[in-house]
């Protein structure tokens, strides 16, 4: 498999606290890959490491053959990776339009109009609300805005952190993280059946065993 993104033995610390411990994973071109795991298991940290928000203490991040482990966040966006953070983090005092425009910060000026039009086509409601302040949108609209904003930069790799909050994930392949380690990896069909996934979400295995 020609991987677009490869993580090798990634470790991240927040102060003295360990958040990731030797995570390795790969994402192929055109593939949708999901990270699963309980709160605090390191999913968000993995994404933050990829997008350059946190510096790994160890390990490598290779994107399209380039080592981006120590690249600053802005260079990573320019390289084609955008990240829709958990909690959306739309700019509350920007209008929808400005939120989208700032998403196109790294895009050549002449391409901005086209990207904007694409975002509006994808989420027509954003067009209606383009002059409304980001902070006044409903949760769902904010999520659309966050994704639309991330798409403005025409990314080749999109990182989505909890994009749907309880909506069904569309899985192709997945990794299950537990306390900063990958515990399960595989295609999504296998994952949904994997008892460890169910345990992670509902403790089904346990409950079933109890019965």
């Amino acid at each position, binding site marked *: 498999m020609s991987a677009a993104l490869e993580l090798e033995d990634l470790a991240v610390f927040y*102060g*003295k*606290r*360990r958040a990731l411990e030797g995570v390795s994973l790969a994402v192929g071109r055109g593939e949708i890959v999901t990270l699963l795991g*309980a*709160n*605090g*298991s390191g999913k968000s940290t993995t994404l933050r490491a990829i997008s350059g928000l946190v510096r790994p203490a160890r390990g490598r991040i290779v994107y399209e053959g380039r080592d981006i482990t120590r690249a600053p966040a802005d260079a990573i966006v320019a390289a084609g990776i955008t990240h829709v953070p958990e909690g959306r983090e739309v700019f*509350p005092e920007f209008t929808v339009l400005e939120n989208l425009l700032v998403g196109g910060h790294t895009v050549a000026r002449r391409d901005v109009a086209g990207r904007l039009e694409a975002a509006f086509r994808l989420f027509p409601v954003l067009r209606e609300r383009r002059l409304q302040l980001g*902070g*006044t*949108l*409903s*949760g769902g609209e904010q999520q659309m805005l966050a994704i639309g904003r991330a798409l403005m930069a025409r990314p080749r790799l999109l990182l989505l952190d*909890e994009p749907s*909050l*309880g*909506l*069904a*994930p*569309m899985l192709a392949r997945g990794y299950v993280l*537990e*306390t900063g380690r990958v515990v399960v990896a595989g295609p999504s069909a296998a994952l*949904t059946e994997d008892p460890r996934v169910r*345990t*992670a*979400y*509902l*403790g*089904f295995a*346990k*409950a*079933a065993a*109890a*019965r």
Partner: protein
Amino acid sequence: MLGVEDLSISFGGLTALDGLGFRVAEREIFALIGPNGAGKSTVFNVVTGLYRPSAGRVRFRGADLLGLAPHQIARRGVARTFQNTEVFRTLTALDNVLIGGHAHLRGGLLRAALGARLVRREEAAARRRARALLERLGLADVAGVEAGGLPLGLQKRLEVARALAAEPALLLLDEPASGLNPTETQTLMALIRRLRDEDGLTILVVEHDMELVMGISDRVAVLNYGRKIAEGKPGAIATDPAVIEAYLGSADG
């Protein structure tokens, strides 16, 4: 013991709680679960007085908690831990626990300043109690360590110790198992059970770790979009179709 009725609250247009109600009985372990953003932590923040709801009531041992300041609620016997741990980072573990016992000490400023005997005696006693608590939670070794430098698992335990130092009747645990490894989670489960069985505490817990929830809870309430979508015994909840849909999406996607 704790009765929450018809609670509603919204932030900047986002509805966080929508007519939520549930009751927790004396010496019960009651879990609130639900996907991220379902409003679980908001419930805690309302009960402990940090947020003021737009509608609803919170009754604790027959008294209305709404309108009371957080410290007053704490003094009535409601203690809590925090989702992202709020230990006093530059203070030692021991001092953290001592602050937990704040409400039970009498020594005021003047007597403390003048080194009054009462204060010295009281302090000594408080330190003994705090050390005992640290001991009980397996933190005796780190009593003199700055809390911010402790590993997350120990910080979480320290928060429990601090909450216990307040000698509460109701303990609110906000995601106590997040970031813990399976062994640590097992220890935690045993501790929670002991707190109920030996100390007679009532415990309200918000948790994602289903193993913990299913393992210790007497009853579970499931929240989604600020509403309660199910309530009952853990076994029943785990097989409730509404709950499964909320978590994993409907079978047909």
